[in-house]
């Protein structure tokens, strides 16, 4: 609650970001750089890349957390002064991606650090990254939610559906 208040009232004025690659393929890093170009222009929200974690308010993590980089990323996280906000960019940082069960990957970024916001995508579009940051800062609304689908019981009424739907498969 206090954290939300801090994020929504203090940080949006100028979010300085430190970008960390913790084992990514550079796809997400390129999209993060793309977000800073004049076309997408993240700087109009005061978002700016900084060269040192000690100057940063936010940490951007790209890629799965590998065994080699985990201690270094942990140190970077500790170097960022409080209050801080951590973004996980890409499918790899969100849940481990394709590498979630390989021997040298610990999993997503949340296996090592407390992550506040996730932006899935492989790589996410620059718009998706902007949307993620804007949602975290309270400028836009979150749009995904859990999907649950239930099939109608076809054994009871197998021909209730229009006939065209049954014929789709036969034609090819």
């Amino acid at each position: 609650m206090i954290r939300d208040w801090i994020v929504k009232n203090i940080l949006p004025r100028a979010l300085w970001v430190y970008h960390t690659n913790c084992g990514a393929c550079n796809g997400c890093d390129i999209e993060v750089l793309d977000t800073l170009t004049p076309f997408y222009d993240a700087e109009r929200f005061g978002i700016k890349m900084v060269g040192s974690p000690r100057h940063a308010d936010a940490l951007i993590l790209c890629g799965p957390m590998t065994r080699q980089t985990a201690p270094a990323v942990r140190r970077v996280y500790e170097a960022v002064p409080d209050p801080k906000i951590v973004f996980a960019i890409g499918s790899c940082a969100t849940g481990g991606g394709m590498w979630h069960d390989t021997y040298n990957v610990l999993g997503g970024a949340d296996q090592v650090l407390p992550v506040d916001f996730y932006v899935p995508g492989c790589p996410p579009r620059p718009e998706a990254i902007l949307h993620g940051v804007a949602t975290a800062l309270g400028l836009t609304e979150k749009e995904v939610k859990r999907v649950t689908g239930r099939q109608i019981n076809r054994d009871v009424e197998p021909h209730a559906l229009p006939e065209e739907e049954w014929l789709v498969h036969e034609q090819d």
Partner: protein
Amino acid sequence: MSILKTIWSKIKEAIIALTPGRVTLPYPFAPREPEEGFRGLPHVDVNKCIGCGGCANACPARCIRVVDESQSERVLVFLHERCTFCGRCAEVCPVDAIEMSKEFELSTDDPHDDLVGEYHIFMGPCERCGRCFETTSALDRLQKTGMRRDSIDRKCAIACPAEIEDEAEEKESVT
């Protein structure tokens, strides 16, 4: 003269800089459609799905789980948190139940709950072995393509309700 030249060059620069206009997108405050061929969150049409599990087999990130909850219900759990949006599941689906949508605004603070798709598929269990197979509609489909029930051989009959297998057994005993 050199001062005039400098001023003229600055004026030219200003003209060039003013011509392109505003290039920055108004993105988070105005929607932007992705271009043709963009693959976003996969959407599953549950009523088309036959529960074959081919998508789970083809998924490179192994993000589709197939759980048989009971003898007549199979649950496909899509863990989109590690989905790479490659579109292989949509490619291999024999009934085209999976479609790659253009949704890309997937940012969330709780991916383990928000980025999950759960689809309950009705499966008919075999009366003998109890395993799931396609519902009776599959049998209807076979008949539509010209197969008759009595021409189904013993191999097919393994996946069929008991009455048809009985017929096949009777036939064998006669020959």
